[in-house]
């Protein structure tokens, strides 16, 4: 029987680790092993209870629940009233600053550099020339003082202004008969809305909050603000807008949240 010389693995360090380390710390290693085994066994049991018990995660159950969620998209679309305005409020009721919401904490916000930022346009749009912040900020503004409702249950009244989305889409020659408007954000966030919502009179590309340019945590230089959707549909730090007929899952819908999210 011949023994092939062992070929050193690519991942094995060329110079072996000094075995002295093991003998020096033998006591500690043994101690960790003995206690760790028991703790590990208990921990493993607890882990299965934590992760294994949710029936919602089982394939067919999750598939069925998502099918109902898609059905609910259709129901919400059917009860959407294109020209029905959401209640508006007075400037004295506005909360300053607005409440932060994102899938990460406020400290992790990466501010967008407004000077080099460009808004790209894609899909069923005639004039796809990108927009610089100062050109966009020069467009006529619309102000809406509306209630922001988060899917979690909290709400506040915010005062937003910026170009009306319908006007903007018309200006760039977008196909207003297309089905969806997509927003791609400076972080890895994506969100999309149906065309009827995009054309609603209270849907704007917000550039200001309470009369001042929006702060970094709230979407500078450009964010969506629509009165007819839950908070998470209002994409912040928008860097591209695409008009399309193709449905694609978005950041939250991929994770099981309702896509339509109308209020």
């Amino acid at each position, binding site marked *: 029987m011949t023994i092939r010389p062992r070929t050193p693995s690519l991942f094995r360090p060329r110079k072996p680790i000094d075995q002295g380390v093991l003998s020096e710390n033998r006591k500690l290693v043994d101690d960790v092993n003995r206690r760790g085994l028991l703790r590990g066994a208990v921990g493993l049991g607890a882990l299965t209870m934590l992760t294994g018990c949710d029936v919602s995660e089982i394939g067919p159950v999750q598939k069925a629940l998502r099918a109902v969620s898609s059905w609910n998209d259709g129901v919400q679309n059917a009860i959407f009233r294109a020209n*029905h305005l959401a209640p508006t409020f007075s400037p004295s009721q506005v909360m300053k600053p607005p409440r932060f919401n994102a899938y990460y904490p406020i400290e992790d916000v990466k501010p967008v550099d407004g000077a080099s930022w460009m808004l790209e346009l894609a899909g069923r749009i005639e004039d796809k020339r990108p927009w610089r912040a100062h050109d966009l900020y020069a467009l006529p503004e619309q102000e809406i003082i509306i209630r922001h409702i988060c899917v979690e249950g909290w709400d506040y009244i915010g005062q937003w202004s910026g170009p009306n989305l319908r006007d903007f889409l018309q200006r760039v020659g977008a196909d207003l008969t297309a089905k969806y408007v997509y927003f791609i954000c400076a972080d890895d966030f994506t969100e999309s809305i149906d065309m009827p919502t995009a054309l609603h009179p209270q849907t704007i590309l917000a550039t200001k909050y309470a009369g001042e340019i929006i702060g970094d945590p709230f979407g500078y230089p450009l964010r969506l603000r629509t009165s007819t959707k839950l908070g998470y549909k209002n994409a912040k730090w928008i860097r591209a807008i695409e008009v399309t007929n193709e449905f694609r899952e978005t950041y939250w819908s991929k994770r*099981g949240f309702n896509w339509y999210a109308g209020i």
Partner: protein
Amino acid sequence: MPSKAQAIASAKRALSRRLHPWSVRIMHWINALAIFIMIGSGWKIYNDDILFSFLRFPDAIVIGKWAQYGLQWHFFGMWIFVLNGIAYLCYGIISGRFWQKLFPISPREVFVTVSEALRFRLRHDDLTHYNAVQKVLYLGVMAVGVLIVISGLALWKPVQFSALANLFGSFQNIRLVHFFCMAAIVAFIVVHVSLALLVPQSLLAMLTGGPLLHKPRDEARSASAPTVAEIKNIPEVKTVPEIETSH
């Protein structure tokens, strides 16, 4: 004019009517399942933004490990709860069941029944007859059921149904109303299930249908059951007056 065979068949059906017809039993248990889903997932949704600092529902008793699962269950369960609830209310009103079982309610009787219950002297020998407290509780929980759906609709669509949502004053008020309706239903369930366990025949009746409303061997049978000659003349037998069996 229905044929003789049809009339006899419907008269036979009337004779074999039980306290809880199969339709009521099915709707009752579908409702139990829907309520279970709605409360469990509602607690999960509540936990994401609590209304009361002292109240957070333990993870072990909520439905859905993550917020989106709680929401998925809630917006699935709502269809079962609402559609089944509408079917139940329509049935109860059209068949006359509500009128027969839940009315009239005399305030004096409510007072007497409550005092009997508090002294543990309440008797429930006759399942076919609801006491005044039962009547009040059943009507009350139905009203709360309607209110929880209305407040739920206002929470789900505060803009599309803004006129409805405005009746509550503020968005957080809608949440509070929805929450207290849930609390009332939970309180009802505690009483309802405890009493059903104390009087096991009543629980059994919701499974098997319970006592016949008309016992075939009763003397009364000949008096109230239609004769063949009568059946011929009955154009349609929709409801048969309830016959009280025993007291």
